[in-house]
C-alpha cells in the first residue's frame, strides 16, 4: 500500500464509488420534498411551502415516463 501508484489507484477507486453512492442515494432514495428543500437552502433561497410536483413522474426515469417532462428545444 505504500507504493504511490497503488495509493492513487485506491483513492481514485474510492472516489468513484463514493460519487456513485451519492448519486444513487439522491436519485432513488431521497424524497422529492427533501430534495427541493435542500436545493433551495443551498442556493440561499427560501424553499416553496407547497410540495413541488415531481415533473418526471418517476425518480428513476423509465423508457416511457421521462417523456412526461417538458423538453425545450435549444433556441
Amino acid at each position, binding site marked *: 500500500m505504500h507504493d504511490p501508484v497503488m495509493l492513487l489507484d485506491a483513492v481514485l477507486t474510492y472516489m468513484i464509488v463514493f460519487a456513485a453512492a451519492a448519486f444513487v442515494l439522491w436519485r432513488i432514495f431521497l424524497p422529492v420534498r427533501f430534495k427541493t428543500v435542500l436545493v433551495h437552502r443551498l442556493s440561499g433561497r427560501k424553499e416553496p411551502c407547497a410540495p413541488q410536483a415531481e415533473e418526471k413522474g418517476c425518480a*428513476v426515469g423509465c423508457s416511457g415516463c421521462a417523456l412526461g417532462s417538458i423538453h425545450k428545444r435549444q433556441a
Partner: protein
Amino acid sequence: MNVSVPTLPSLRLALVGNPNCGKTALFNALTGSRQKVANYPGVTVERKEGNFVSPIGRPVVAIDLPGTYSLRGRSPDEVVTRDAILGRLEGDQRPDMLVCVADATNLRIMLRLVLELRNAGIPMLLALNMMDIARYRGITIDVDGLSAELGIPVITTVAVSPDGTQALLQQIDAMANAGLASTEPHWHALDASEVRDAHHLADRLVDRFVSHPANDRDWTRRIDRILLNPAGGLLILLAVLFLVFQAVFSWATLPMEWISAGFDWLAQTVSAILPAGLLSSLITDGVITGVGSVLVFLPQIIILFFFIILLEDFGYMARAAFLMDRIVGGAGLHGRSFIPLLSSFACAIPGIMATRVIENRRQRLATIMVAPLMTCSARIPVYTLIISAFIPNRQVWGMVNLQGLVMFSLYAAGIVSAFAVALVFRTFVWRGKSEPFIMELPGYKRPLVRSVLLGVVQRAIIFLKRAGTIILSMMILIWFLSTFPAPPEGATGPAIHYSFAGIIGHALQPLLAPIGFNWQIAVALIPGLAAREVAVGALATVYAIGGDASGSALSQTLSAQWSLATALSLLAWYVFAPQCASTLGVVRRETNSWRWPVAMFVYMMVLAYIASFVVYQSAIALGG
C-alpha cells in the same frame, strides 16, 4: 422577431378541445416541446406548460390540457381541464386566451364544447386543425361564415406541417393587440335540456357551414372492414405482433454483435493500459462489463419502439385494444382501460398515469393494479438475454423463429395474467356491473416519417441516458459490494464469496432455492428492484469478478452455469415480480394511499414465486 418592441406583457394561452384532435401536436409545434402525441384519445392526462415568443415578440405561455367533450369533469383528467379553464386550480392563474382546437374532419362534437366554453368568460378563437386531412377528403368549411356566426375568430391549422401554425400565431397576436378582457366565469353544469339544445345548435352549424363531398375519400371505414373483421381481424393482429417480435430478434442480431465486440475491445484496451489493481477492475468488470451488457440491448429497444410508434401513429393500436376486448370480453375491465394498458408496454408508469381517463374509481384501481403485468421495455434485456442463452436459434414449423416465439409467449403471458387478475379483482374485491366497451376509434393516418424517427431517437436517448446515469452508478456500487471486504488471510474459494454481495446472496439463496435461483441471481434481483435491467448488468459483473465468466458474452456464461429449469424459472419470475420500485411509488401517488402499492407488491410477489416454483419444479420433473 422585432427587437424594437419593448417587452410586451406575457400572455397565457390554453389549448382545449376533444381528445385526439391534435392539441399536443399544436403545443409541440408552437413551443418546440416533445410531449407525447399518438393517434388515440386520452394521451395527455396532465396540464403541461411551455413557452414561445409570438411573431411580434410577445412572450407566450402555452398550456396543453387533456382532451374533453364537456366541462362536466367526469374523470380526473377532465377535471384538470375544467379547473384550469375556470381558474379553480390553486396558485394557478386563469388563462388569458383559449385556443379551441377542433378536428376539422369531425367538427360537430367540438362545436358543442365551443358553445359551452363561451360561458368560461375568456376570449377565445377556434383553430380547425387537421386541415390537410379535411382537404384531402374534400370536406369544405365556410370559415368566415362560421366565425361570424360564433362571434369568434376561426382559423385553420396543420399541426404536423412546418408552417401549419402561421395563421394561428398571427391571430394570437392580433387578438392580444386588440386587448383581451376576461369576465368572471358564468359556467354551470348544463342540465339535460340545455345539453340537447347545444347539440341541436351544433348540428345546425355543421349543416350550414360544412359540406361533405358525395364520395368521401375516407379510408378508415374500408380498412376497418378488414382489420376489425371478427375472424380475420384477430389473425391479422396475431400476425402483426408476431412479425414485430421476429423482427426484434432477427434484425437486432448483427448490431448487437457489433456493440458487444466494441465493449470487449474497450475492456481489453483499458486493462492493458491501467496497472492491475482496484481501478482497473472497477472499470473493466464493473463499468464496461456491467453497463455494456445492458447497452447491448439498444438495437432491440429501438426496433420495438419503431414498430410501436408506427402502429400508434397509423391508428392500429386502438384497434388492437378493441380486438383484445373481444378475446377477453367479460374480464370486467373498462373500455378506457385499454389505452393505459397499451402504454404500459413502454413502461408501467405512464400507463398508470393514463388511467386518469377512467371515471369509475374502482375500475381505475383495477386497471392500475394490473398495469405492471404488461411487459414493459425494461424487461426486454432480461428476456432476450435468457432467451438467447437458452433457447436455440432455429426455425420451427418451417418459418417461425423459436426465440421470437418464446418472446411472444412471454408477452402473451403478461397480457393473459393481467386479464385474469382483473377478473379476480372484479369478482372478489369490487363486485359491480361491468360496463360495455365504448371507445372511439381514431381515423387512420399515414405515419409521418419524421415523427416516427423522432420518437425512436427520443426513446434511444432516454435509454442511453439511463444507462449513463443510474445504471452506471448502480453498476459501480455492485462492483464495490462484490469486491469488498477482501477475503481473510488464507481463505479458500473465490474472493467474491467473502464480499458483501456474496454474503447477501448466500443469505437469500435458501429462500430462492425452491425456485431454482442461485446466489448470483439473488444478488442481481436486489438492484433490479430499482431498475429492472440492472439485473442483467449485475449478473455480468458478479460472474466477471467471481471468475466464472466463460468467454466474453454473458449469455455464454449463463448457458454454462445455469440449468434450463433455472432459466425458465427466472423468465417466469420476471413476468410477475414487482421488480420496479418507481412503479410502486407512482401507484402510491396516484391512489393517495399506501394500501394499493402494498397490495400490489404482495400479490405480484406471491404470483411470481408460485409461477417460478411451478415452472422450475415441472422443468426438473421433465428432466430439465
